């Protein structure tokens, strides 16, 4: 443990950490765009395809140089993207297969070059192996400066062109319509994604780099619905994972950095998946429970009202009868009876229930709204506003439409017959009585 903290003081570690944080930042940011453009797996292809580019750069330059490696990787990254595009466009091969073909063939060719280099040269090949799984410890100061500079440029460009990237991702045809040079920005974005992939290769490695684009972005999604926050959060998660992975990797001999970073990032994803306030499982579960309870209460009232409406004399019904009308799960049945009688909406005696006056009012509201919504759905296309169940409200319709809806309600014979005394007395809902 002490050794772990000592590491922080080592200037080399500090430099490496700095570089990794920045590159995690840019992966998260650009990965968000890749994710939203549904191009996450193309990022995987780009990363794998970079290997031959790096090897060729080595062969041409003669020794390790991150600068030329990056150029080589970028070029083969581009070629791979272009090839995928061509294959899909010019043949009946589908996109998933095209990505798989380019990814595996390029990588295979990269391995060929790698073994060629290993067999030919005597010791200068050092550095190439690191590109498969990543090895942050092998980063030197000049490497870090290069990676950091590119990251900063990428981040600056993102801030500069944020609006444009956002709109070409969300609605390219609209963007074209308002005169935005979509192809131009598309190309810039692709270049930026390629660069984000390529600078990460030495740290994360070819095989896992795809995850750097995907995982932080998808984790961020669970915390926010706004693109700007998502991008920033993705960047932070990427940076954090990069940092944690690098630290552990540099303190343990023989552990490649890539896998550690990915495990860190995925752990954050799993936590986000469960606890995220926006779409997290925990939230969804709690909401679901609340909804089930509310629905059960409503179902009961609706059923009781229907039974009352159908039989014109009897006002008393057995619990079982009501539960039969609209099924309510056994576990909630007790709750429903208790809650409704506590609220004074029903009165229970010996397993027989009846609606109280207050209950009739509540039930009437429910039934009316329910049937109006149903009628609305049956004739949805004739109304201006399109509303979902949650939003449905009479007040959102125009006068004319309200009339029409009530007319349709009557036409289908669904007008609620039992009107509570309070309404009869106050004539609150004018519409119904006008018909």
């Amino acid at each position, binding site marked *: 443990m002490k050794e772990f903290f000592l590491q922080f003081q080592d200037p080399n570690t500090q430099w490496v950490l700095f570089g990794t944080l920045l590159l995690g930042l840019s992966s998260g940011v650009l990965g968000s765009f890749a994710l939203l453009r549904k191009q996450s797996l193309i990022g995987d292809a780009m990363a794998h395809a970079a290997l031959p580019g790096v090897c060729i750069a080595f062969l041409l330059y003669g020794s390790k140089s991150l600068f030329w490696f990056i150029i080589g990787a970028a070029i083969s990254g581009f070629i791979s993207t272009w090839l995928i595009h061509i294959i899909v466009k010019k043949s009946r091969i589908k996109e998933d297969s095209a990505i798989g073909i380019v990814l595996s063939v390029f990588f295979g*060719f990269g391995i060929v070059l790698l073994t060629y280099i290993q067999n030919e040269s005597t010791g200068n090949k050092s550095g190439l192996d690191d590109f498969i799984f990543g090895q942050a410890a092998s980063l030197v100061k000049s490497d870090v400066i290069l990676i950091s500079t590119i990251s900063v440029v990428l981040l600056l460009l993102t801030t500069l062109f944020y609006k444009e990237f956002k709109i070409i991702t969300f609605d390219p045809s609209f963007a074209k319509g308002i005169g935005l040079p979509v192809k131009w920005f598309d190309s810039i974005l692709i270049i930026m994604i390629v660069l984000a992939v390529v600078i990460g290769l030495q740290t994360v490695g070819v095989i896992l780099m*795809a995850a750097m684009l995907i995982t932080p972005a998808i984790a961020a999604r669970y915390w926010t619905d706004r693109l700007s926050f998502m991008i920033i959060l993705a960047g932070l998660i990427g940076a954090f994972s990069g940092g944690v992975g690098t630290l552990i990797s540099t303190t343990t001999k023989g552990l490649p950095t890539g896998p*550690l970073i990915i495990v860190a990032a995925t752990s954050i994803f799993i936590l986000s998946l469960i606890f995220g306030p926006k779409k997290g499982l925990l939230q969804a579960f709690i909401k679901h429970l609340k909804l089930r309870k509310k629905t059960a209460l409503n179902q009961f009232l609706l059923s009781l009202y229907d039974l009352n409406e159908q039989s014109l004399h009897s006002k008393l019904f057995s619990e079982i009868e009501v539960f039969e009308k609209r099924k309510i799960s056994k576990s909630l049945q007790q709750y429903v009876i208790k809650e409704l009688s506590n609220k004074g909406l029903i009165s229970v005696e010996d397993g027989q229930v009846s609606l109280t006056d207050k209950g009739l009012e509540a039930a009437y509201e429910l039934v009316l709204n329910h049937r109006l919504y149903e009628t609305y759905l049956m004739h949805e296309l004739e109304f201006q506003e399109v509303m979902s169940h949650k939003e449905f409200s009479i007040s959102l319709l125009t006068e004319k439409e309200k009339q029409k809806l009530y007319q349709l309600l009557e036409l289908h014979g669904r007008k609620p017959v039992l009107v509570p005394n309070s309404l009869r007395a106050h004539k609150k809902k004018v519409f119904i009585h006008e018909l």
Partner: protein
Amino acid sequence: MSYEAWILLTASLVGASCGLIGSFLVLRKMAMLSDAISHSVLLGIVGAYFISQSLSGVYMLIGAGIVGLLTTLFVQLLSDKGVQSDAAIGVVFTFLFAIGVILLSLYGGNVHLDVEHALMGEIAFIPWDTLEINGVDIGPKSVWMLGFVLVINVLLTILFYKEFKISAFDPEMALALGIPVTFFHYLQMTMLSLTTVASFDSVGAILVVAMLIVPAATAYLLTDRLIHMLWMSIAIGVLSAFIGYYSASLFNVSISGAMATATGILFALAFIFSPLHGLLGKWLAQKNVRMEVKKG
């Protein structure tokens, strides 16, 4: 049998199994799922080793089968929870693969397992790692395992040919006919996992993907009948194995890498020259149409 012959046989068996199952993956647009499973089975292999403390092929196959199914399951789970499918695949397999690599680096060092081997295979060692029953040497372990997997794949494909076909072509109709589409999906994923693991030893994880997808895609461009596509994928896989091996010997490079590259070259040839679906074929067809129009 000569050293070289064993290697070629091994590689051909890989090509055959991969071509067969790969065809259905390509048709069902599940190429990336196969990429995912072939990465994550590394964890299955490592896990199997830790639990069984042995490198026996049987345990590896079981471990692979389990992890393969888990991968499919997790991806499905995430998809159902609203994660977009490409992201789901990316997250799951990279995570499982990363864990596999970490375990391997930490604990696999002393044993025959090492990372590079898992990645690229070491087909050169295959002929020497033989199986002995009652003291009789009956050939390399890999060949036995691959042969076994190939037999299973062929058998299942023959038995369930109709069901595989219609599940790929029209899953809704298949359901309406009472065919358990989900069962066949998981069955194929299991076949995929077994094939991947059996191929691991010889060509390594990453290069199995090439053998799975590329020959099948090549065959897809060459024919309009499913049955032809199947045997063509196998043939192209085997051909790539031969071309790859001889090129690698010539240039002294990775055999599996060369085989993967060979699949790519064959694909490129089909892409350009296929009379049915290649660039040339389409160009010729268009020319014919123009000539017909001129004549008429």
